[in-house]
């Protein structure tokens, strides 16, 4: 590295040992940089409540060859369920990747098509493992250490200040991977702070249930897993519910659009209580033991909240860069974090080697992200992400679906009717027809 390291001997400081930070640290260390990885928790993952799925992505294998053979994962997801919950019935769509009896002990990347397999993770274990890979690659990990400010000199970021002691750690380059609130990037003037409009609040209850019971209730075998997403179960607040299967635990929770939660004046734990007691969820949780409760914010506004991604001596990756989204059908974040962490590392290593960490040099980071799926996916679903701001998607439409399906299956001696008639009747009294037509057009523009 041709830039002079800071007085502490580091070429780069990475803040936050989550997936983005540890990936950045691995990438930098592999390129020969002296990297300090800071984590505010007692250990990496101590502050993480994620109970979800990580989609497969090539960056993981580039960071650690044989990634999924080594990483501690819970279940290989082969089954995805989308459920629209109504007051009297629920309607589901189930996707299953070619799986089942031919692979009784679903191994790593268990379907023939790895890209269709995601993995559910238990993040306190996963994050610890990924940070260990960074240490093995040569990075120095310092836990229980909160970096609360950037050190800026002559218009460039030159290191971080530690909370409590006020000690300064100097380095020519800082990679901020400090999570969804993105306080360091804000300190560096890259954004003005995220707003309630831009984020979702995730609340999660963790339940313990035997592996066999989970297999049976969710229709799984071996290490196969499922994800279930629910619409219409949030008391009118924009958002949705989820159940993710881990090996012998279930992550059950809600993601609630924060501006909507605030506006409705409802308490997230009361909504979670209602969700776990609702018929389609309660039967899956029967006899399961509640073991933990947690909450976290999720970036949800896509490109409308992406901060500036670089400044002299500074790169931002993962949740801190707003790289997390849901379009109502899929929710992604971890693969974006790991990929952006790796791209940040490559850009940073080249900048350090060239002895130039100027804004001009570091803009290569954003250019690479624009070519990768990270910023392209956010752009693709830009309108879909925005479409989810309509309250009626979470209130009237689930009722319409329920009424239609009930009409389809009802057999009470009166003559059956065609689908169009059932649909019109389900809509009547709930939504003006022209509103529905306008929404169909918007769905077309946003998703098709």
């Amino acid at each position, binding site marked *: 590295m041709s830039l002079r390291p800071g007085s502490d001997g580091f070429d780069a400081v990475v803040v936050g040992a989550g997936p983005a930070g540890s990936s950045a640290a691995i990438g930098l260390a592999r390129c020969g940089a002296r990297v300090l990885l800071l984590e505010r928790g*007692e*250990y990496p993952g101590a502050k993480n409540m994620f109970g979800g799925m990580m989609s497969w992505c090539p960056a993981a294998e580039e960071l650690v060859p044989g990634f999924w053979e080594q990483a501690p994962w819970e279940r290989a997801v082969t089954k995805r369920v989308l459920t629209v919950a109504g007051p009297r019935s629920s309607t589901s769509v189930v996707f299953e990747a070619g799986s089942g009896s031919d692979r009784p002990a679903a191994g790593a990347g268990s379907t023939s098509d790895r890209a269709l397999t995601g993995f559910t993770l238990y993040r306190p274990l996963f994050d610890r493992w990924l940070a260990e890979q960074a240490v093995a690659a040569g990075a120095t990990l310092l836990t229980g250490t909160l970096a609360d400010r950037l050190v800026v000199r002559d218009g460039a970021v030159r290191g971080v200040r530690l909370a409590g002691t006020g000690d300064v750690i100097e380095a020519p380059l800082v990679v901020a991977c400090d999570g969804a609130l993105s306080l360091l990037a804000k300190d560096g003037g890259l954004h003005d702070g995220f707003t309630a409009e831009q984020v979702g609040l995730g609340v999660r*209850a963790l339940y313990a249930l035997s592996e066999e019971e989970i297999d049976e209730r969710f229709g799984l075998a071996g290490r196969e897993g499922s994800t279930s997403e629910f619409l219409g179960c949030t008391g009118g607040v924009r958002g949705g519910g989820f159940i993710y299967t881990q090996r012998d635990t279930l992550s059950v929770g809600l993601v609630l659009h*924060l501006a909507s939660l605030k506006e409705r004046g409802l308490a997230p734990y009361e909504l979670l209580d209602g969700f776990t007691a609702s018929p389609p969820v309660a039967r899956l949780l029967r006899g399961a033991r509640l073991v933990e409760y947690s909450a976290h914010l999720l970036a949800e506004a896509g490109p409308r909240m992406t901060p500036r991604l670089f400044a002299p001596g500074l790169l931002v990756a993962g949740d801190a860069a707003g790289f997390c989204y849901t379009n109502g059908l899929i929710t992604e974040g971890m693969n974006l974090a790991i990929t952006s962490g790796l791209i940040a590392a490559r850009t940073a290593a080249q900048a350090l080697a060239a002895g130039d960490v100027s804004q001009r040099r570091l803009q290569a980071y954003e250019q690479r992200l624009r070519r990768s799926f990270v910023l392209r996916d956010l752009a693709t679903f830009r309108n879909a992400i925005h479409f989810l701001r309509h309250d009626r998607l979470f209130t009237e439409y689930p009722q319409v679906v329920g009424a239609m399906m009930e009409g389809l299956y009802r057999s009470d001696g009166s003559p059956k009717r065609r689908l169009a008639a059932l649909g019109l009747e389900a809509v009547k009294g709930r939504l003006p027809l022209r509103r529905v037509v306008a929404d169909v057009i918007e769905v077309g523009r946003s998703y098709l």
Partner: protein
Amino acid sequence: MNVIDLFDLVSYRVHPEAHIRVDESVCHGCLHRACTHSCPARCYELDKERGRVVFAYEACLECGTCLLVCDRGALDWNYPQGGYGVRFRTT
């Protein structure tokens, strides 16, 4: 599930000093008091007799909800010092 049970299941290493400070003079006069219902850890409660919001940091889940629902800028919001605050289970 009982809502009360939820809060008893979280483990913390509590720092003697609060990591979030609420400026009550700014807070006073807020009509929506969104923090009292949006906070997932019930750190903000309305003292009905005195008509003010009472804050306790010990059970904070460090999510940042209060920072984003407060539109008066009443909060000096920080994470707890390194190694303190909520800790999620490893097993």
